[in-house]
């Protein structure tokens, strides 16, 4: 019986051409992700990790290789690979409810009745604890709340893979911790397959089953893949002194700051 990973990145190269100069961003990226797995990609800024996420999302075309989802090639964007963008990307003229509704109507317009779709929207807003603000506009809620709504919009598409592009990057530390806990709880409950981009070592160790560490660009590769053998559900406070946690954290830090320390000024 041939086994294949749920999501497979198969020998992906990516280069950008501008005029006559060609810049190689990613080189020979091969990675398999199992169903229900939470995988983080970590690396210094400019190493191409966001580009990699955009390739999986289909927002950018690959230069070579392919992305396989359930052993089928995907090369254009779709709701089966919902993205939570770094800066939330909510539509400012729509309410919180309408922002989720636009996704639900598009994905389930043909299969769910109006009432079912309403219930589904409210269910997802409840999941991220934002049902109370359903009639507010994005400008009226905080950054963390916007990110929650962005997450609800992505979850509401019932994606096969949830792609998180530095979802907590623009938030303050307390809000970030709170939102990380929410994401962990949702992942625990729904068993989503998640691919997350981050530059935060603690975040990567706390949330992930595996951490993919990228070397510096140009032509960035996967430097090392670290398993995080911590039991779930994970508790932030209990893990602070946990030996496995600290060891994992140490490994990532060593990779980022000793072996592949950032050479250019950011």
């Amino acid at each position, binding site marked *: 019986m041939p086994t294949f990973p749920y999501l497979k990145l198969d020998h992906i190269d990516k280069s950008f051409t501008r005029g006559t100069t060609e810049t190689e961003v990613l080189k020979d990226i091969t990675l398999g992700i199992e169903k229900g797995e939470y995988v983080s990609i970590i690396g210094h800024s400019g190493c191409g990790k966001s580009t990699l996420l955009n390739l999986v*999302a289909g*927002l950018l075309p690959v230069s070579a290789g392919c992305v396989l989802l359930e052993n089928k090639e995907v090369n254009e964007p779709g709701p089966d690979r919902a*993205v939570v*963008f770094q800066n939330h990307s909510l*539509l400012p*003229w729509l309410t919180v409810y309408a922002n989720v509704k636009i996704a639900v109507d598009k994905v389930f317009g043909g299969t769910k009745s109006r009432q079912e779709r309403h219930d589904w929207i409210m269910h997802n807003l409840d999941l991220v604890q934002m049902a109370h603000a359903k009639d507010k506009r994005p*400008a009226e809620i905080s950054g963390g709340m916007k990110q929650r709504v962005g997450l609800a919009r992505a979850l509401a598409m019932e994606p096969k893979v949830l792609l998180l592009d530095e979802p907590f990057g623009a938030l303050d530390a307390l809000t970030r911790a709170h939102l990380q806990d929410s994401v962990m709880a949702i992942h625990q409950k729904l068993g989503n397959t998640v691919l997350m981009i981050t530059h935060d070592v603690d975040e990567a160790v706390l949330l992930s089953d595996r951490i993919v560490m990228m070397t510096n660009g140009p032509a960035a590769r996967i430097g090392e893949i670290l398993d995080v053998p911590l039991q779930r559900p994970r508790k932030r406070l209990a893990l602070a002194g946990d030996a496995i946690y600290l060891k994992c954290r140490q490994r990532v830090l060593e990779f980022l700051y000793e072996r592949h320390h950032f050479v250019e000024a950011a």
Partner: protein
Amino acid sequence: MNMPVLKTETAVSFPTTPAKVLAIAPRKTPVATRALARAKAVAVNVVPPVVVLAIGLLVWELLCRKAGATLPPPSKVLNDTWELIVDPFFDRGGLDKGLFWHMSASLQRVALGYALASIVGVLLGTLVGQSTWAMRGLDPIFQVLRTVPPLAWLPLSLAAFRNGQPSAIFVIFITAIWPVIINTAVGIRNIPQDYRNVAKVLRLNQLEFFYKIMVPAAAPYIFTGLRIGIGLSWLAIVAAEMLIGGVGIGFFIWDAWNSSHISEIILALIYVGLVGFILDRIVAAAATIVTRGTAAN
């Protein structure tokens, strides 16, 4: 021993009665102060223009009251045009109608020409904003055509339509369309990549993308164009009507000039100014309502 008893009694009886007084009292004062503050704010905006207007009228009166003055003073304007002011609705057939009818004929032409310009302008602007090739092909032509003065189009449109009414409407259309096209195109080009990515992930089709993302995202720009457009249309209508004749405020002014009714011209100018101001306010108000929440992110 007596003192504490008294105290408790008063303490018990007090809260019920004065509570009512207290509840009403704080409500009263803010209303009064708020009304006063609002009256002040209104006065700040109203008093200066009224004063300037009064001084202007006074100077005008003094300048034009002398014998041999070419223009009538305001008192004579009021006297001459009193009939037109009090009865704007008379209709003695032909072109001898009240100012209301002239105004409404002009407004109808503007409404038609402007509505067409808005629809076509937004669509063409979207095309130019969305497609690089359309921009390369059309933008230089638009940049040249938009500098053609509105009235220069009139002889050509008269030749094409052979009728005054559609020609006037065409002149309004061609006057108002350029700012709508250009602003819409800029608005479309400035749609953040994030919104486009959201649309791609959702697989919105072209039509859904147009009315769910593009139009709302570009609305502030589109309304800037629409507001410039309404001003230009109103500028052009008077000149166009002077040339095509028929019922309309432009022709009314030209007719008054031919009959040397200078006071009537002045009255018409005041009306044209006021209506132009109101049109601008209407589009501005529509913009505030429609683009609510769009600007802030």
